[in-house]
């Protein structure tokens, strides 16, 4: 079970959150082209490894939380508020030992 460190509430179980997908996508300007919106709505990098994504804390503070998580190992590297820029780890982190 993912344990997510909500910036407002602290570490909480994944069951309190609703996943909301890729957080690297930026909504184009309202007058942008269909192509720009197509990219925003449909195209996904879908990385195998570190992924910056949204977890909506619906069973808690109802804030959208930005999370850097590894899609292969399910490790969580960082969490933050929507406006925060979270960097990906350079090297894979290890557990104890």
């Amino acid at each position, binding site marked *: *079970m*993912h*344990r997510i460190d909500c910036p407002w509430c602290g570490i909480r179980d*994944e069951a309190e959150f*609703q996943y*909301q997908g890729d957080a690297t996508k930026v*909504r184009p300007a*309202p*007058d*942008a*082209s*269909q192509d720009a*919106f*197509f990219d*925003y*709505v449909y195209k996904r990098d879908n990385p195998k490894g570190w992924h910056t994504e*949204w977890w*909506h804390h*619906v069973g808690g503070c*109802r*804030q*959208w939380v930005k999370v850097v998580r590894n899609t292969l*190992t*399910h490790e969580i590297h960082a969490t933050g508020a*929507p*406006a925060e820029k979270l960097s990906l780890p350079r090297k894979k982190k*290890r*557990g*104890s*030992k």
Partner: protein
Amino acid sequence: MGKNRLNFGGTKLDRSKPVNFTFDGKTYSGFAGDTLASALLANGVVLMGRSFKYHRPRGCLTAGSEEPNAIVEMRSGPRREPNTRATVAELYDGLDAQSQNRWPSLAVDLQSVNQLLSPWLTAGFYYKTFMWPAKFWEPVYEKFIRRSAGLGHAAVEADPDTYEHAHAHCDVLVVGAGPAGLSAALAAAATGARVLIVEEQAHVGGDLSSTLDQIDGKPADQWAAEAWVKLKALDNVTTMTRTTVFGYYDGNVLAALERVNDHLAEPPNGQPRQRMWNIRAKEVALTCGSHERALTFDNNDRPGVMLAGAVREFVEGYGAAPGKRVVIVTNNDEAYRTAMVLKEAGVEVPLIADARTTPNAAAEAARAAGIPVEMGVLPKKAVGRLQVKAIELQRVDGAFHKKVECDCVAMSSGYSPDVHLVSQTGVAPIWREDILGFVPDTPKRQERSAGAGKGIFDLAGCLHDGHMAGIDAARNAGFEPAKSLKASRADPTSAVPPLAIWRCPGQGKAFVDFQNDVTARDIHLAAQEGYVSVEHAKRYTTLGMATDQGKTSNVTGIGLLATARGEPISDVGTTRFRPPYSPVAIGAFAGHERGREFQPVRQTAMHSCGEKLGAVFVEAGLWLRPQYYPKPGEGVMEAIYRESKQVRETAGICDVSTLGKIEIFGPDSGEFLNRLYINGWKMLAPGKARYGLMLREDGYVFDDGTTSRLDDDHYFMTTTTANAARVLAHMEHAAQVLWPELDVHFCSATEQWCGVAVAGPNARKVLADAFDEALDISDEALPFMGVRTFSWCGTTARIFRISFSGELAFEVNVPWSFGEAMWNAIWEAGQKHGLIAYGTEALSVLRIEKGHVAGNELDGRTTAADMGLGRMMSTKKPFIGQVMAGREGMIAEDRATLVGLKITESEGRLRGGAHLVVDKDDASAETSLGWVTSVCDSPAVGCWIGLAYLQGGLSQHEGKTLYAVNPIYDEAPAVEVCSAHFFDPEGERLNG
């Protein structure tokens, strides 16, 4: 007392408490502390089951949860549980067990003729056989195979027991309370860390219950018992027995099953049968021990042929002799301990046959104790059918050696560290040739293995390694041990390495996976046929896929596969272990969320009002809503018809509390709504409401509802019942992520405000009487789409002049706790104005007659234009979904758009889900022009009507006759296409 009960041993028994039980209808006696298997053995019963494929007679192979053979049906009726391992089933008075997979009886199983077919039932037999003649597969062979499925019978009635979910948090979790686990827990506890130690069995100490060794100068089992007492006394330690940690999940969360009351006939009143634990552990010490392996020789599955460690456990732990004359066959030192225990217990050991030729101290000690030992000797074949009668032995070179009479064979092919849990974390087990076992690689999570679980098999080593693991775990959790902390000690021993023997030479059936009847030959065959990958071989032969999950068989199988491939085991690798560690009842996962408690039921504040009026309720998501209010003797259709007719004639009241409600505040609220909805909101004046439609970002309709401006900076939104939560999430995304610069704040108020709709020509009169002086609802004071707040009964109420039915109508909201009072006030006031209550069905009739869309029309694939609301889409401002709604496919001419349908036949009816075609005799996927979304028998129109999406829409089909084909009901009524605004298209009735 059973004939094979010993006066020796029995450390797990309470001999003062005799217990009666039955097996296959025959009554026996055992002691409290027995397992079903030990009690049967003590009674001289060795035949306990039949294998899956060949129906071979089987006794127990092991004494623990890894048991593949002795699995039985326990209990009866709704508590019947198949495949319970007799070796873990604790005896209770009145225990009733049946053997499985046999007919007519365990001793005489006619299906054992499968053995005669065995040349065709080898590895992969499913795939190769049953193919000829072709026409026989489905009607004949498939039925045969399906009838042969499974072992035991499940109950067919609802499980009467309950299951709980519980949560635990700790700094250090120790899994397994054997010598390493106890040592780890003692060390970790001494640092002050919060320790949770979990043991699968009812007794702690693991192997220590069946050893003659000493720890810290005491008998080992006494040391274990004292350690447990010490741990239990510590405030920072929680101990659990009868609890199996079965899964290692992400976030260092482990799952465990506590068998709270399985050792009793039934759970005491109010108690659960089992409890599922979610354990959130900072650090974990895995001290899970190891599993002994069987030697692979002909007929090694005969009842009475058992693992050496199991024999030791039965004798020492349970005081039950598996036989009177026990031959030991081994490739390692450990089995000698069994010989010594047997000797001590007074059981005859005519021979220890050791496959190794190197002299070893264990053999010397055995000989010194008077037990004959022969080196370089292997088992060849077990003799006997329902119980072993003798063992034929051979020299290492395959030459016949001799035959020894016996009624039990204790065998050992070495030990496999139990790497199941650690393997679940993605750590690959790596092969160690010196110990003939897989051990865990570097941890990936906050865990470490210790003791036999990482290949340390001597007692002194386990104690020390467990101690170090406990310290390491505590330190990583932030606790420092005192320097003086010391591990318990046992005498060091030196073992001679085991000898790898994956197949003792022979031509007969030598079993690897006992339950699934996978033989050494099957594995050889799979490799020969090209299933050389370990995963392919496993799937092809079903090795390790039985209820014991291959605990005793996997490594031997891999050894055989490696032999067949001519490669070292390290190159062959192992299959991945999947949770759960041992099988877990489905009910335990579900916990209390079952039956009616599967999901909560939501009731509105006016639920009891509906009940009093005899409402029939319907599920709307989690909500219960009044569907209709039948009068005595009235059918469903009549009631709905009456209600919808009456609303248009006098007035009706309907509970609409389930609508989603969101309070919106802030100076940018108007701008925010402007970006959410497709229509404009900037010009909406305070005191006014407006219908709004919002799209998803992909341009399809998301939700609709009425939103009111209560004050300059205060709006009140309603959503559909179904989408309330999703709309809120959508808005939170917009406010927090897309436009954090907007000064807008909102929260759900669905459960804060309850509401009723009052509709019909008399609606104003009803409300005027109900609220009396509190409220002026004249047309001037509250025009159509007007909103007012007013004070009523000391609280604030809101009234909206909006209409879903097309009648003069109002919706009134009051705080949730005032709901019942409001309903009653309106109800009483309405009696003289002909007020009736109407449910969701009449509500639907009224809105269909007006062509208003609802959930059936909003299926996530419709555009605003499809619904006839294309012109609502503002071109003067941007809004969510605007750009993508412009894609060619979403504005294409051939899209189906909303129309009305009237049945043109006097008989028959319309149904939702029918497809529309021009020619009912040429109905196909290609000629279908659309589908019917909502239907009703309309009092206002006087016939069955419906809403539908139709390609070409009204512009191409108005007035034309189509057929609403409905093959699954075998109906195809003719319908006339018309405007969806069936009734009062000018909207004159809104004014009463």
